[in-house]
């Protein structure tokens, strides 16, 4: 990675008063201790990383810092002065702003409007927009981060990465409010960016350090170590320590996060040798075209994991959905075990033994208020029915068997799935395709998104087990490393077409760099 700005670890005049400090922060929710005595110091002109598994309390802590959550106990100091933050506006008055994980821009307004939205200042006079002044204000903000985005471009025409830049520019408006160097919180800013965009973001974060403090949250430990000066680690709502990034490796952080050493065999490489006699592929895709992909050819054999990688807009998500009948196709032929696969709807795909795990688990993957049992048997109704009627006994034994088999941590099968942790939710979603016993092809769209390391590892192991049992898998991985670690073969997509295919056997894995050059 090219670095324009040296990591300025030793600063000339270390600011004595921290930009932001919290002491003994406690927040209880019914039945859960989200924060249990968190201490945190953010120095001026520092990029502080915040690491922790899901449920460690990161989100609650961040929300406390911008006034969205009121802590039960504990104090917050801004530049040495104790403050009470009751709303996001009060936080902004003290110079604290956050770029949210889900983007919060209005798509049909211009970048300039979005940047000044809510704090128009001279951009509005007597209730009327003054476009010139507004564009100037927005330009000032964009200049701060040396961005070349046109302030008059409509937000929905910008790329995801550009929109994130607009958000950062918007957050920096708090400088005007507090007259102090701001504290900018970035909540998992890289989770939906592709690697090239991530580099741009990092350049930006290093630039921010020149005039602001940054709190940077990410699930990817290598990123944290790359861009931060110091890392604070949370575990079960408590601060468990902090480290300088110099000399720290991801495994060290991982150990702090989970309280023990991480497993080396992270992706659970196959130990089972597969015969290479190459029978006919289970899935064949020939010249398949849809809205965002064209002339795609793809073969997947039984027991094979094929990862499809590509940048945002490569069309791989739509391809995946199209194979499940959830996205229209315009041309092409698809066969499953030699028989033509009906792509007209999801029901036909399910009946043919195709399963799909969507990226948006909470919205598309599961029905939150329904029970674990009902979610698990949602698709394969036959598995829980005797004739046309649901057999509660049959359902109970089936579901309990799978809860046991996948070690799903739930009080019982009747618990609403939305009350489980992300990893356990995902296991229920996966189990939905397994309970019928007829799964032949699994389409996994970011199956580990938002899961912590422990849960990821379990999902990886499950995928391995399934492929060892002959299930063909198409994987859209969360990161290139994940794709490389799990896949037997990697298909690189670019602009809706298959750019190339890379073999990816255990022991002879390609590097991320090999793939990146094909992706763009």
């Amino acid at each position, binding site marked *: 990675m090219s670095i324009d700005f040296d990591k300025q670890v030793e600063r000339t005049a270390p600011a004595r008063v921290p930009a932001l400090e919290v002491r003994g922060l406690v927040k209880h929710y019914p039945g859960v201790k989200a924060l249990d005595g968190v201490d945190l110091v953010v120095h001026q002109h520092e990029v502080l990383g915040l690491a922790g598994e899901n449920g460690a309390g990161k989100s609650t802590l961040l929300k406390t810092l911008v006034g969205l959550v009121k802590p039960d106990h504990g104090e917050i100091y801004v530049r040495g002065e104790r403050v009470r933050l009751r709303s996001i506006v009060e936080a902004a008055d003290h110079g604290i702003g956050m770029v949210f994980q889900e983007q919060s821009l209005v798509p049909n307004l211009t970048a300039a409007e979005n940047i000044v939205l809510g704090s128009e200042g001279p951009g509005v006079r007597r209730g009327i927009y003054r476009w010139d002044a507004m564009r100037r204000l927005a330009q000032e903000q964009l200049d701060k981060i040396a961005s070349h985005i046109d302030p008059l471009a409509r937000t929905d025409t910008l790329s995801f990465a550009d929109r994130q830049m607009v958000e950062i520019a918007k957050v920096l408006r708090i400088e005007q409010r507090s007259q102090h160097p701001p504290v900018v919180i970035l909540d998992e800013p890289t989770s939906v960016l592709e690697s090239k965009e991530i580099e741009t973001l990092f350049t930006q974060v290093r630039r921010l350090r020149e005039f602001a403090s940054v709190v940077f949250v990410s699930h990817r430990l290598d990123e944290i170590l790359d861009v931060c000066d110091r890392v604070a680690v949370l575990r079960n709502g408590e601060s468990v320590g902090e480290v300088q990034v110099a000399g720290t490796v991801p495994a060290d952080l991982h150990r702090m996060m989970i309280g023990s050493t991480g497993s080396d065999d992270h992706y659970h490489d196959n130990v089972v040798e597969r015969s290479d006699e190459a029978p006919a592929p289970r899935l064949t895709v020939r010249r398949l075209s849809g809205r965002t992909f064209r002339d795609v050819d793809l073969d997947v054999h039984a027991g094979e994991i094929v990862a499809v990688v590509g940048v945002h807009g490569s069309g791989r998500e739509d391809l995946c959905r199209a194979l499940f009948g959830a996205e229209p196709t315009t041309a092409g032929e698809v066969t499953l075990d030699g028989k033509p696969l009906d792509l007209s709807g*999801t029901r036909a795909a399910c009946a043919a033994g195709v399963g799909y795990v969507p990226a948006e688990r909470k919205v598309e993957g599961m029905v939150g208020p329904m029970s674990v049992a009902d979610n698990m048997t949602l698709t394969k109704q036959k598995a829980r029915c005797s004739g046309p009627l649901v057999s509660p006994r049959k359902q109970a034994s089936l579901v309990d068997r799978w809860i046991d088999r996948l070690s799903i941590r739930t009080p019982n099968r009747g618990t609403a799935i939305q009350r489980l942790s992300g990893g356990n939710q995902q296991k229920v979603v996966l189990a939905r395709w397994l309970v019928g016993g007829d799964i032949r092809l699994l389409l996994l769209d970011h199956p580990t998104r938002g899961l912590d390391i422990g849960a990821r590892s379990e999902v990886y192991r499950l995928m391995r087990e399934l492929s060892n049992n002959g299930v063909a898998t198409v994987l859209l991985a969360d990161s290139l490393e994940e794709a490389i670690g799990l896949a037997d073969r990697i298909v690189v997509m670019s602009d809706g077409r298959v750019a190339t295919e890379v073999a990816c056997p255990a022991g002879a894995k390609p590097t991320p760099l090999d793939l990146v050059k094909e992706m763009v």
Partner: protein
Amino acid sequence: MSTPVTVKPMAEPVVVGRGPSLADRLTSFMPVIALLALLTALTIADPDFLTRRSLTAAAFTAAPLIVLAAGATLVVLCGGIDLSIAAMASLSTVFLALWLPDLGAFATPAVIGVAALFGAVQGAAHVLLRIPSFIVTLGGMSIFSAVALVVSDAGTVPVVDDSAISWLNLYVATYIPMSVAVAVIVVVAISLVIKATPLQSWVRATGYSESAARLAGIPVDLVKIGAFCVSGACAGLAAVMLVSRNFSGNPSMADNLLLPAVAAIVVGGTAITGGHGSLWRSLTGALVVTLLRVGLPIVGVPSAWEQILYGAIIVAAVALTLDRSKVLIIK
């Protein structure tokens, strides 16, 4: 396929979210509490209220409302709304009155069948043309009203020989009006069928999260069309009950039942956002609404105020039952 998957459990809290709170539990019993409170209040206001005569009168009023609300509840459970039920019922009273002389006993199934068909057509329009159900059924409401006016020549169609439908005015076990018994049987039958088959999962999943339901391979479109079809059939049955009481059909006979029916659904605690609720709740809701209707004159409130009350209780009940986690932006 047997998959011997062994995954070691990890250390984390078993349950992260919060279960139903005391307030939630209380809200779910609210319809029953309201029903009992109303009964008590009315008995205190007028000790004669608990006589057979006034209770029977109330029951006869309740029957068509229960049936209307029960049918429309299915649509609401799927996440839609059916505003055409009252107009459909009015149209059905006209059809029934016109067909009784020729078809006799077959007029009843014919009317219910036609209403079911119209319901299904609305459902199909909603699903295939991808129009919000609220718009489709608002249009349907207008169309059905107009058709009723046209076929009835804008007037009441008297029923001279009501022998084919007069059985609804009999009593079961000397006390319970037949029409109420039929209404309860309809609720029980539909509830049982849903409960005992995959329909329960399908309807709830469709209502809670249509995209998740679709991606789980649930026949979402058919489920929704089916719900509208049943809603239409129930409107047809309600019309039969109305005609049996009024000895005539009229193009606006059931029109004033729309608001009470919607009120019954939401007062019962079925979430207007879909997924959560049941036909039983609507039955309770319909009884609450009926008691209000017959009770207001007893406590001396002029009947002109009735509509204010419906408006107010719909808003209040939705405020209590709305799943705000699902509707991020209220439009």
